[in-house]
């Protein structure tokens, strides 16, 4: 189990960050997206090779309107 943007998510053992992000429609080609796991930024070039451990907290952010 991992937590993606605050929601618990069941993933097969050995799933990568890329697999988790695919669940919300994010690919390495998505514009204006940044991802952190357990508070550390993971560059998009590393998503595929990044194995998620049980309980990993993933934050996937994008631009929103703000001052």
């Amino acid at each position: 189990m991992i937590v993606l943007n605050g929601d618990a998510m069941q993933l097969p053992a050995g799933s990568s960050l890329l697999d988790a992000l695919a669940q919300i429609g994010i690919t390495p080609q998505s514009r204006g997206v940044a991802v952190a796991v357990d508070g550390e930024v993971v560059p998009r070039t590393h998503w595929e090779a990044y194995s998620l451990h049980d309980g990993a907290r993933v934050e996937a952010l994008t631009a929103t309107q703000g001052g």
Partner: protein
Amino acid sequence: MGEDEPLLIARQPLQSRLISGTGGFASLELMAQALAASGSEIATVALRRIDPAARGSLLDVLTEAGVRLLPNTAGCHTARDAVITAKMAREAFGTDWVKLEVIGDTETLLPDAPELLRAAEELIADSFTVLPYTTDDPVLARRLEDLGCAAVMPLGSPIGSGMGIRNPYNLALIREAVRVPVILDAGIGSASDASLAMELGCDAVMVASAISRAQDPVTMALAMRHAVHAGRLAHRAGRIPRRLHAQASTPEEGLAQLG
């Protein structure tokens, strides 16, 4: 008087001295129209969790508008959160510029000075171009400059309050205290506030809610553009000193004796 020099932030020349926020607009279309009316070359954006159901791309609209993105760290209450958010903004938008906000109080949204200094130091060490949202404290502004911030962004009054510039003397002192650009941030309510900021010597003004939440945001964006320009001209022209009593501009000499 010759042509005005461009504003330089981190060696980047800018013709417009009005920075626009993108928050609070009823639609992306309205935001785009207001941005165009404002003439702004820089617009702020925030980072939030991806909403798979979201419609329309803010980034596409801003790219179309041709503005430089200034990501903020709005909502961060610790140096650690602000630093991570800035790093995520750099990853997402490919810019090392950041409007650094570290909030210390949820009611007033006033900056947390110790956390702000900590975050600025860490980000500058990581090669970020840091524009910190700060209180109107000249000493803190100088500390931020000493750390290597590219500008300082003192508040006029609390974010979104529309209360204008509560302490113009401090702003004038900040302008004397630092060499980096001073960008008035937060508190602008209407065009006269933006003019006052520029008359006090600020190098630029950042406006968000005063435009986006105005009854007619596009017209208010145009008003702000003119206000910033007028205030800048007035500052360069040099205002007359304030006097308690009148001083006639019409000469006494040659006055007719009529009675």
